[in-house]
């Protein structure tokens, strides 16, 4: 069963990747989408099993991988509740995105390649979430990175897409640098890279210290920090986030699947997976809280002023990932994963809805050239509004359960950094609501600002695209209400069964006791954000312009994403090329060659000049030198008589 879930997308990738051209578009679409759909159905069966019968915790061996000295790791699946949750998220969204893409990519000449990549991504993501050791997790980790690279650069003729693809891969490699060191440190401390063995021994290691870069560290803290650096790269957290907005160069279904619902949540998954270790590393947890809260605030602030519809949603994703992280940071692991789960539905819905809008507007992504799309695409508009309600935490929608639980946990927590998280989270909730409704008003309502040609061609998407949207909307509405008891409610102990750390009286219990203003603050902020957006983009539509002019400095700061790209370009990219050029011309060219072979050659130029053909002359030299060597050796034997 688990073999089937994981390997069916791989089969889809291989078949379509190799024979896609001869199979044709339609067959490629059906093969890949069909196989992923089967995986999705099987995943739901596993998930229902977990809900009905409590979690399992088992390991399924696949194949030997590497055995070297004490280091040993194999291809194997670890099956527990966390895996089951991730299987459902990954395969459901993936299957819906596959089917959606049948409609969305129908005009693209490279259909087989696109579907093959999507299935490759799905396979890698499944390997990541089923990993039973750190190295296999790293395999999935890098595999999704590859698929992301290929899909961001899918339209490889566009220079901007290629640049974004490289940026995504290299920035992720910076995170992987930390992840890798974390794995090595884990091996040195635990003597294994198997997850179960590490978790079983974590408590015994809680007082150990190890040396790292010449400093003595609390062992579990440094391991957790290093692993978290990897998580920051993949989940686009503050400092390593710069690749995510650029990743919107990829086709929109890709943004929905990879850069909203699944891959970017891998970092959250990693930290939750390591919750049995993180619980003994409180300093690392504080770091997670602060980075998460900062990201939630930062990304939301940038999202306020972006004009590209996909970039707004991208920053929203980044911000929501921040929420998930600080939930983990304050110890509400179940709540963090719950938000991951609900977020997958409504954020995929928003992205695919944006794709539908972009389709309707002849591939226009700039919201300043939209407006009034409501009259062309009513279904899309309604579905996106549902997505917004879920995201902003409208009562009884998915986000209401997961996001509010996170904010309450931050409020209830006494850990260092939790107040910071709470304040930023509430402010970010206001901004989330504002940018979501700003997007809605700019896109769907008011006068249409597109040119006549675009308006004439504006149309609602076909049912191939709308049906997946409807299914996601169902998730966005009900995922919170139905599953809250399992993820964060009374049933959570049986449900998680130790897959993430949770216990009676923990932070999630305390969060349930938050009442009054603290509890309703996010809801209030949601309403306020809506009103502001309506006022600025529904009523007084000249107000944003005036505000931007009045606060030009702040506006530019936000519009330019806090100048991170410029800063990194200045700090890393340019110096790398400049140093490279310097080392090449000065180091290799002038210094090493100048003192070495070229220097010597100028000394012996007179001799060399006499040779008629240099290369044969040199060869003779060489053969001569070797012969002299042999002669000397033979003489040596004869004179010394050694060798007896």
């Amino acid at each position: 069963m688990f073999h089937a879930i994981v390997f069916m997308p791989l089969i889809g990738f291989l078949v379509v990747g190799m024979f896609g051209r001869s199979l044709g578009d339609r067959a490629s679409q059906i093969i890949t989408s069909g196989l992923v759909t089967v995986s999705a159905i099987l995943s739901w069966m596993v998930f229902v099993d977990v809900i009905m019968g409590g979690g399992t915790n088992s390991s399924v061996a696949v194949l030997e991988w590497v055995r070297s000295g004490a280091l040993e790791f194999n291809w194997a699946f670890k099956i527990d509740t966390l895996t089951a949750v991730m299987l459902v998220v990954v395969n459901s969204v993936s299957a819906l995105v596959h089917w959606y893409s049948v409609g969305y990519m129908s005009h693209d000449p490279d259909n087989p390649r696109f579907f093959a990549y999507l299935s490759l991504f799905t396979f890698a993501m499944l390997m990541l979430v089923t990993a039973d050791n750190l190295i296999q997790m790293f395999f999935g980790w890098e595999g999704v990175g590859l698929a992301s690279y290929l899909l961001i650069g899918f339209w490889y003729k566009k220079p901007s897409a290629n640049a974004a693809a490289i940026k995504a891969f290299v920035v992720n490699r910076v995170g992987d640098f930390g992840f890798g060191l974390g794995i090595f440190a884990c091996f040195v401390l635990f003597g294994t890279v198997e997850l179960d063995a590490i978790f079983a021994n974590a408590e015994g290691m809680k007082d150990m210290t190890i040396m790292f870069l010449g400093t003595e560290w609390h062992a579990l803290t440094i391991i957790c920090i290093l692993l978290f650096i990897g998580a920051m790269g993949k989940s686009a957290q503050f400092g390593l986030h710069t690749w995510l907005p650029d990743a919107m160069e990829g086709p929109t279904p890709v943004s929905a699947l990879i850069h909203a619902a699944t891959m970017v949540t891998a970092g959250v998954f990693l930290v939750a997976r390591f919750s049995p270790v993180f619980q003994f590393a409180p300093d690392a947890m504080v770091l997670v809280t602060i980075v998460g809260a900062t990201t939630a605030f930062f990304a939301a602030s940038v999202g306020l002023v972006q004009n590209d519809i996909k970039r707004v949603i991208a920053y929203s994703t980044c911000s929501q990932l921040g929420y998930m992280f600080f939930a983990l940071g304050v110890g509400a692991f179940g709540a963090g994963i719950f938000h991951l789960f609900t977020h997958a539905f409504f954020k995929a819905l928003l992205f695919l809805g944006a794709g539908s809008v972009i389709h309707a507007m002849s591939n226009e992504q700039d919201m300043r050239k939209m407006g009034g799309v409501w009259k062309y695409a009513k279904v899309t508009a309604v579905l996106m509004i549902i997505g917004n309600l879920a995201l902003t935490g409208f009562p009884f929608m998915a986000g209401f359960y997961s996001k509010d639980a996170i904010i309450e946990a931050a409020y209830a927590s006494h850990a260092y950094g939790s107040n910071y998280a709470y304040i930023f989270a509430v402010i970010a909730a206001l901004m989330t609501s504002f940018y979501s409704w700003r997007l809605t008003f700019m896109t769907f309502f008011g006068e249409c600002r597109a040119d006549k040609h675009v308006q004439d061609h504006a149309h609602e998407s076909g049912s191939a695209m709308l049906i997946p949207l409807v299914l996601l909307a169902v998730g966005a509405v009900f995922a919170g209400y139905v599953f809250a008891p399992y993820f964060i409610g009374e049933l959570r102990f049986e449900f998680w069964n130790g897959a993430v750390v949770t216990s009676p009286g923990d932070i999630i219990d305390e969060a349930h006791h938050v009442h009054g203003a603290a509890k309703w603050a996010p809801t209030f902020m949601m309403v306020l954000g809506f009103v502001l957006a309506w006022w600025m983009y529904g009523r007084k539509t000249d107000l944003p312009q005036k505000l931007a002019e009045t606060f030009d400095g702040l506006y530019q700061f936000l519009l330019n994403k806090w100048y991170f790209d410029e800063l990194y370009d200045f700090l890393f990219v340019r110096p790398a090329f400049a140093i490279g050029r310097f080392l090449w011309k000065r180091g290799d060219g002038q210094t090493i060659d100048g003192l070495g072979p070229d220097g010597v050659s100028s000394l012996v130029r007179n001799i060399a000049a006499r040779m008629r053909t240099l290369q044969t002359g040199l060869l003779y030299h060489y053969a001569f030198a070797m012969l002299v060597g042999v002669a000397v050796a033979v003489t040596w034997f004869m004179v010394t008589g050694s060798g007896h």
Partner: protein
Amino acid sequence: MDFIQSHLLTIMMLTPLIGVFFIMLVNHPDQALVNRNVRHVSLLVTMVTFILSLLLWAGFDGSTADFQFVEKYKWFGDGISYYVGVDGISVLFIVLSAFLMPICILASWETIQKRLKEYMIAFLVLETLMIGVFSSLDIFLFYLFFEGGLIPMFLIIGVWGGAERIYASYKFFLYTLLGSVLMLVAMLYMIGEAGTTDIPLLMEYQFDPGVQKLLWLAFFASFAVKMPMWPVHTWLPDAHVQAPTAGSVILAGVLLKMGGYGFLRFSLPMFPDATVEFTWLIFGLSVIAIIYTSLVALVQEDMKKLIAYSSVAHMGFVTIGIFVLNTNGIEGSIFQMLSHGVVSGALFLCVGVVYDRLHTREISRFGGLATNMKKYAILWMIFTMASVGLPGTSGFVGEVLVLFGAYQFSSWLAFGAAFGVILGAAYMLYLTRRLIFGDLTHEETREMKDLSLREYTILLPLAAVVFWMGIYPASFLDPIRVSVDNLIVTHLDPALERAENRDADAAEQIAAHQE
């Protein structure tokens, strides 16, 4: 069959020479006919040698560290003997050499028109010598093969190379000569001191720790040039750029590995005390090599130079792995050498494919090949990913094992080396972007045809090996294991212990002195 089994190494060395003999016999006024025969004979003998190498691999017993397939005949009085055999450290290098050879012959199928006979003879002789290097168990025999191997390579670059071939072969020559003279002197001393040329006996012989240092440095001079290590690497980019495609494949695929093999066969077991002393030197040079050459690779405008510089960086990983003196590190470095042999060979073949079409290696002349060379683009991507060490490809296993080993030695070392992982992705993807992505802006590149059947047949097996090594590396790690363990247990661990005791004694003396 028994005869073949017991003389397998000799037969493998003779097979290419038999090919040489037949090629010399081919003589006919019709040049085209001659060339066709020469090609077919060369392909046939290299294929036979490759099949024999598979027999060697299959017949190799991974459960013992003893030398196998041993043959020993007196040759030069009592002193020097023809003594060959393989252990876990050498066996797969022979398989690698034999595997790359038919690929090289096929890669030269159409591109080499000038002096084809001599070209093929040079390659076949080179094959014999390469197998000889990895199977010699007599130090003098090793020297002959090791140095002799350079002559055909030298000719391949000097005669069939590009416009600057003379400068390149000259540089190659100068560097190598320096190293080999020092190594020869050291060998002569060792033979005199130990009274034998027998490598297994020399491994047992305990050289005086003081002398060991000098001997170690002399061998280091030769092997460091071969690897090549920074700062004696500058011959490599020039040699690669000028060499014909097949020459680059062998140079990167096999000849560079002789340095690493030399460290493992001589420096570590014969001078273990000096090895322990000099690890800092190796690590310093290796980390510099990784970061320095990766940055240099980033700014290259010539494809071959870029891949040549990346080879130096990858070899930096290998030297680190060898000298951390633990199982993960050494097994990883051997694996990394095998993987690099396949991957860099494949990348040079890929460069050769586009060079044959456009006769330039300047990166800016290309772009957008994914549009009209789809098969090529896929294979290029596979080898690029193997080069950047993506898990699931061969590049990952070696790299990660080396880093595991390095971290056990010192987190600083792993920290420094891991920069190569980031930079490696940067320069390879930047190259990929300029080569196969983007729009087809140049008129000439638009005309370029996708892989021919011959080119496809060359590259496909390499891709298959890349995945095999990445997904099921046990086939390669199993034969290596026992020999590496033996090296560590019998030679390195005692030396490490001695070094620790010396340090403890020194500390005690200082303490006593202070009192």
